[in-house]
């Protein structure tokens, strides 16, 4: 049996009751979280829990680590154990080893369940007071956005994820800002230079607010990046009177 769960972003307080139960009751737990506080919580819930972060190797393609994480999880499932794999945030969002573990386990006939968690995007909408329903929302992994250059609706919100590893498919232990100038150029071809975006990172702690850094697109190339930053680009023009207010304000950003 394989249960894949999300732990939420803020340690402890965003763990759902069903995810907590799955972690506590599993024969074995493998997890990947971004912060030592979340790690200590999971180990306190199930002493057999073990982190998957040892599979990362500096300079080695991240997909090699994802494959090793998936193989480790599947190995436990094949051994007949009731296994819980826990990933920070939501396990179905930007999480290759979670999806791949479920896919392979199902293909081999094992019972599998994925339980949702509170994602970084959920935190972003709450922390910044944004509602994606008002203007619409475009959401891309930043490297894929830069590579594919999809058409952008400037009347809708644009979210770019993983800007701290832009253009990198290998593991780096610290944010790499070297791809930011190229992203800035791409956005400046679409938006005015003075258009202000936000670099956002949800708090990993049970108390406290998020990291929010306003940045003009003309200055994005030199911006300092929080490790797990998301770039939030508001609409540069309203699509209707109804969306005008939402298009021009970040109510909780200041």
């Amino acid at each position, binding site marked *: 049996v394989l249960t894949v769960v999300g732990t939420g972003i803020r340690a402890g307080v965003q763990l759902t009751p069903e995810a907590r139960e799955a972690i506590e009751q599993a024969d074995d737990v493998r997890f990947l979280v971004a912060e030592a506080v979340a790690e200590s919580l999971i180990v306190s819930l199930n002493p057999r829990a073990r982190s998957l972060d040892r599979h990362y190797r500096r300079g080695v393609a991240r997909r090699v680590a994802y494959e090793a994480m998936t193989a480790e999880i599947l190995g436990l499932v094949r051994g007949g154990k009731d296994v819980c794999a826990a990933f920070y945030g939501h396990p179905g969002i930007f999480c290759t080893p979670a999806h791949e573990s479920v896919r392979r386990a199902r293909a081999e006939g094992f019972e599998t369940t994925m339980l949702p968690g509170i994602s970084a995007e959920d935190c972003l909408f709450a922390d910044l007071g944004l509602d994606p329903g008002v203007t619409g929302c475009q959401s891309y992994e930043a490297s894929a956005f830069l590579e594919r250059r999809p058409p952008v609706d400037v009347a809708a919100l644009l979210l770019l994820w993983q800007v701290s590893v832009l253009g990198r498919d290998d593991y780096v*232990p610290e944010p790499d800002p070297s791809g930011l100038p190229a992203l800035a150029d791409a956005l400046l071809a679409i938006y005015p230079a003075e258009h202000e975006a936000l670099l956002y990172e949800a708090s990993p702690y049970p108390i406290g607010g998020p990291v929010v850094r306003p940045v003009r697109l003309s200055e994005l190339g030199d911006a300092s990046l929080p490790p797990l930053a998301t770039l939030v680009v508001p609409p540069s023009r309203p699509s209707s009177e109804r969306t005008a207010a939402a298009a021009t304000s970040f109510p909780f950003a200041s």
Partner: protein
Amino acid sequence: MSKSRIAEYMALLARSERARKAHREDADKAMREFGLTDEQRAIIATKDPEAIKEAVRKEDPDAVQTLAIVFG
């Protein structure tokens, strides 16, 4: 267990509803009772995750945040 008292306090808050209630009701008293110094309490009182992370890193250089990207 972390060598950082700030990280230990955060871990307690993550684990314990009772600790979170005590922190909500009187954060300074709860932190004093846990044994945090004036400086540690001041850092937590900022509620700034970057300041907290930096302080944890100074207290326990091994408690490094993982850039745990799992996509792409």
